């Protein structure tokens, strides 16, 4: 056993390093191509290093589509959804975990069931509803359908159930109503889970593509992922400006890299992943 230890150590690292290289390859090429000149991106064998770096690809990509506006749209929409979810989910989670009333169990089952519905199935009818409302190509259309989340309610309910009942009783003896308990006891004590919900929601909705694709039709309302696909279409697949396309890819990725650096622990250690059994 001990004699084989160093061999196993080397084997493990060899496998993991190879896997890491494979995983990083697309990201490496994204970055490298974004700094190469237009013809280098077509060369075979490919140029690995962008020498000398063509920084001007970035401003060129930025103005090729109204990316400034799309950046604003993506951020407004994502934060609008997150703010909405944090409020609606914590209210619902409180009701479902700490208040006794008739019909509660049924509501909880309905909320859980919505998690199972593949969201695309609802898109055609939801699109028709929004066109009736005159909401197509507006911020409402991008935000309102997502300000509640079955998953979010489930996640926060698990966290609220962890709060000791004695704390709630103490607050209630002091005359606090349900709303005060939610605001002054539950929310402060569940900050890590609220952060997890916010971070997961950011990743999901900032990257969301299908829904923004169908409910927006003007450049001024498009979000970044939709803008990226517009860029492919306008440059055409044959004469694609790979360097500028990759530059746009990199600046779309930027907010996620920052989020990932700051919030990785909230992404990888969710109560959902620890509670399976």
């Amino acid at each position, binding site marked *: 056993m001990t004699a084989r230890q160093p061999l196993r150590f080397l084997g*493990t*690292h060899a496998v*993991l390093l190879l*896997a890491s290289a*494979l*995983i990083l*390859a*697309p*990201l490496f090429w994204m970055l490298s191509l974004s700094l190469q000149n237009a013809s280098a*991106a*077509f060369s075979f064998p*490919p140029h690995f290093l962008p020498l000398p770096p063509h920084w001007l690809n970035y401003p060129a990509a930025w103005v090729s589509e109204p990316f400034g506006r799309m950046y604003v749209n993506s951020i407004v929409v994502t934060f609008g959804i997150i703010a909405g979810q944090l409020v*609606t989910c914590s*209210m619902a989670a409180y*009701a479902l975990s700490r*208040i006794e*009333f*008739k019909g*509660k169990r049924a*509501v909880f089952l309905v909320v859980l069931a*919505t998690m*199972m*519905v*593949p*969201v*695309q*199935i*609802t*898109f*055609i*009818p*939801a*699109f*028709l*509803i929004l066109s*009736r409302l005159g909401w197509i190509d507006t911020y409402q259309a991008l935000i309102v*359908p*997502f*300000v*509640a989340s*079955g998953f979010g309610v489930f996640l926060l309910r698990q966290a609220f159930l962890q709060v000791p009942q004695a704390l709630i009783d103490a607050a*209630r003896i002091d*005359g606090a*109503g349900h709303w005060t308990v939610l605001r002054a006891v539950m929310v402060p004590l569940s900050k890590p889970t609220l952060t997890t919900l916010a971070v997961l929601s950011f990743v999901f909705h900032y*990257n969301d*593509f*299908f829904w923004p694709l169908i409910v927006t039709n003007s450049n001024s309302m498009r979000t970044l992922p939709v803008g*990226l696909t517009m860029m492919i279409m306008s440059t055409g697949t044959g004469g694609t400006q790979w360097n500028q396309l*990759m530059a746009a890819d990199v600046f779309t*990725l930027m907010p996620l890299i920052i*989020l*990932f650096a700051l919030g*990785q622990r909230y*992404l*990888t*250690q969710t109560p959902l*992943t*620890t509670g*399976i*059994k």
Partner: protein
Amino acid sequence: MVHPAPALARVTRRSGRSADARAGWLMLAPTLAVLLSFVIGPLVLGMGLSFTHYNLMSGQAQFAGVSNYRDLFAGGSTFWTALLNTVLFTLGTVVPTITLAVFFGILLNQQLIGRTFYRTVLFAPYVTPLVGASIAWIWLFRRQGFVDWVMQLFGVTGPGWLSSPHTALIAIIIATLWQYTGYFTMLVLSGLQAIPPDVTEAARIDGAHGLSLLRQVVLPLLSPTILFCLILSVIQSFQVFDQIYVMTDGGPGTSTLTLVYYLYQLGFEFFHFGHGAAVGVVLLAVLLTFTALQLKLSSRWVHYDL
């Protein structure tokens, strides 16, 4: 708590059950309003819509019986191609994803120099926008792209990955494996960390080690996590859309046309809302069947007791 404090009893009496119910429903109202309007309502509406012909100009839906379904199920229809492609994509994605996730999970569940680095790298694709990653994959898979170059190092000529109907789906599967394997590895890892160390220790004292420890102790204890990953991964695979929209548009021909992409085409390119809604209903039915089947079969291999 045997005797509630007198003050507490007074509070509960005063606020009473009806006040509780009022607060409860008030707190649920926003969530229920949104879920009813944008999930449950559309779901029911979609089922209704699937039995109609919807006229875009007048906004009128006309009852059409099961004709939409008959069109879909007609022999040799595009629908069957889309269903077959979706099933192939799902098999091709789920099996390697879960296998790799368990493999990497086990590797990363040991004391290891650089473990944080590996975990970070493995998880990074999950936060990358699917659209952005797919754009990079087009370049990687294009003729004389990076993948062709790597293949040439081994003396193989690339098949023209995205332009051949035989390989386009495989290219999309590879891109998808890249995107999600790390996420499932993290799920497996947290499942592994939930296994009490004394259990594996006891098994080791009893003489189990290496593969036998893995097969007889670790994997059975991990089985609920694996089931969860399987179900999640199947559901996710059935909904594949972004990669296909960006990388192939369902082509070449219909070789990468999947159910959700077909739903998109019917609904938002051809404006056949009735047919699109019918595809949605079939998708839901297939997924529910698959999930139920997995849960039923799971009793044969999933162990919940320690």
